[in-house]
């Protein structure tokens, strides 16, 4: 599925200083019953965001109008648990384009890159700085620069670089897709398949 190209993102951010945010919190299993990829943002963080009767929980960060933006900042081990890509879809559909944490679960990270969300891994110290900066001023902006592989707290100029392999970087900057790449090597794959013992 096509996604928006990612180059430089300047935005306020939503802080979620919780460790081990798992995919069952991002999107509970009972909301995985669709056969199309649409509307998952409505149920993003469903049980943290809404009471059982559907009314919003006022103390949850997404229900606090002070915080907004296209960047979600989470605690260590963000996205652990299930392989459901629905978790990444829900984050994208809600309007986030970038998730920042000091540590991502592997499958979530791969899923994010495949659908056009940039996972930015920063040091624990820089993550703390981001949380403190947002706490001090919810309107503070971050700049995520994919070509330069930097993340900057614009108010102070404090900056860190982040890692991403050049293949995935190129994909995200151009909206390219792994499947098109692989389909272009069909013959090479077929030859490989024919040589498999089983």
């Amino acid at each position: 599925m096509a996604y928006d190209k990612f180059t430089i993102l300047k935005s306020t951010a939503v802080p979620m200083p919780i460790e081990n945010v798992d995919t069952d919190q991002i999107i509970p299993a009972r909301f995985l019953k669709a056969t199309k990829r649409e509307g998952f943002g409505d149920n993003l963080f469903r049980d943290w965001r809404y009471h059982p009767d559907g009314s919003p929980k006022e103390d949850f960060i997404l229900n606090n109008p002070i915080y907004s933006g296209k960047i979600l900042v989470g605690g260590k081990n963000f996205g652990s648990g299930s392989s459901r890509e629905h978790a990444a879809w829900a984050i994208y559909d809600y309007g986030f384009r970038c998730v920042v944490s000091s540590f991502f679960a592997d499958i979530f990270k791969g899923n994010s890159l495949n659908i056009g969300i940039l996972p930015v891994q920063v040091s624990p110290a820089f993550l703390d700085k981001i949380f403190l900066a947002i706490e001090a001023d919810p309107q503070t902006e971050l700049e995520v620069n994919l070509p330069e592989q930097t993340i900057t707290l614009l108010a102070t100029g404090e900056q860190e670089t982040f890692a991403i392999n050049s293949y995935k970087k190129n994909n995200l900057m151009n909206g390219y897709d792994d499947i098109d790449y692989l389909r272009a090597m069909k013959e090479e794959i077929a030859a490989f398949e024919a040589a498999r013992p089983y």
Partner: protein
Amino acid sequence: MSSQPTTLFDKVWDAHVVRKIEDGPDIFFIDRHFIHEVTSPVAFLGLESRGAGVLFPERTFATADHNTPTINQHLPVQDPLSANQLKALETNSAKYGISHWGLGHHKNGIVHVVGPENGITLPGMTIVCGDSHTSTHGAFGAIAFGIGTSEVEMVLATQCIMQPKPQKMRITVNGILGKAVLPKDVILYIIAQISASGATGYFVEYAGEVFENMSMEGRMTVCNMSIEMGARGGIIAPDATTLGYIEGRELAPKGEAWDTLVAYAQTLKTDEDATFDLEYTFDAADIEPQITYGTNPGLGTGISQHIPKAGDVKDGEASYQKSLKYMGFEEDESIIGKPVDYVFLGSCTNGRIEDFRAFASIIKGRKKADHVTAWLVPGSHVVEAQIKEEGILDILTEAGFQLRQPGCSACLAMNDDKIPTGKYAVSTSNRNFEGRQGPGARTLLASPLVAAAAAVTGQVTDPRELL
């Protein structure tokens, strides 16, 4: 050959790399692809919108498990959304020529139970599925891991995915396991030691006497929960136990093809001098029956222990406190004696015949506690048939239990098997996340023996006292 010593994982991985992309992922060939109703529909839509087909449909196997009901499977599925997903799996499988064991099929069951029990999972293979517990199949010396829906589409269209090679970890457990200590306790113990994120970025090989002496069912339980410490997968070198399990199963190789497999399997082991990026060693004697008290699988302890104090947990204090608040527990409390409302035996972790045998060993001659609701869910129809043949069903019935029909059930509570808000469930499944077994449900992960002890006493009980 006098090449560099390599690990089992390297041998299987390197044999499947079609091409390496410089400063990018490997193009990785997939031997077997399992699909189910929840994570595949959008992948098929994607194929259609690209005008792509399924490149090797004989390498993909479909089964329905995640949202299927576990009672009255002969009736139409009541939930229209679930019915729609099941129908989509059936239609897509038929359209592209994929083998489909849907609801009602005699081979139907949880994907990670039916793959191995039908001889589809073999040593040295690469196996993926849109489900993180695909790591289960690593028990056979395969590289097996969960993937997202974009990758499901990728495998359907090209039989490959793009994957950076993970780092390598080895976990060695030597010694003899104590009384009532099951494979589930071994893996819960390991996760408690290294935390729920301790193996993120790694692929884990399990080695040592404990795994060498373990049955295939037990090895599957261990590999299954590799993902719960963040590892992409776990792998165990194939041996006589592995081959003994596979031989003769319906889709396993026969004749000459079998001989080829046996010869290949014998090469699948880590060379003596091979190195790992990280190694852990544990002693079997330190492992007692385990139980979790928090909301990630790393927050567990020996059943006779108290809930650790905040200062003693490896996770951050905030997440530990949040966990205890959700569970309604206090630090430094005893877990033994905590009241239990529900017991769940089943899932891709503990829904195999050995798990039901273990459960029955404690149930036999006792009665279910009146206030406990017990959901006993076999992993497949094959397991269900074995439960009946071996007389286990009679033991369960005598003790006041009922057997449900196969499926993922209350492990992720996508169907009607939901633990109510605030209730405590001792579950043999794999995740104790907030709301995992139903909104507000409180899960204590444990082995089938601990689950059985809870089912007959109505509280958390040390199974060693009942054996």
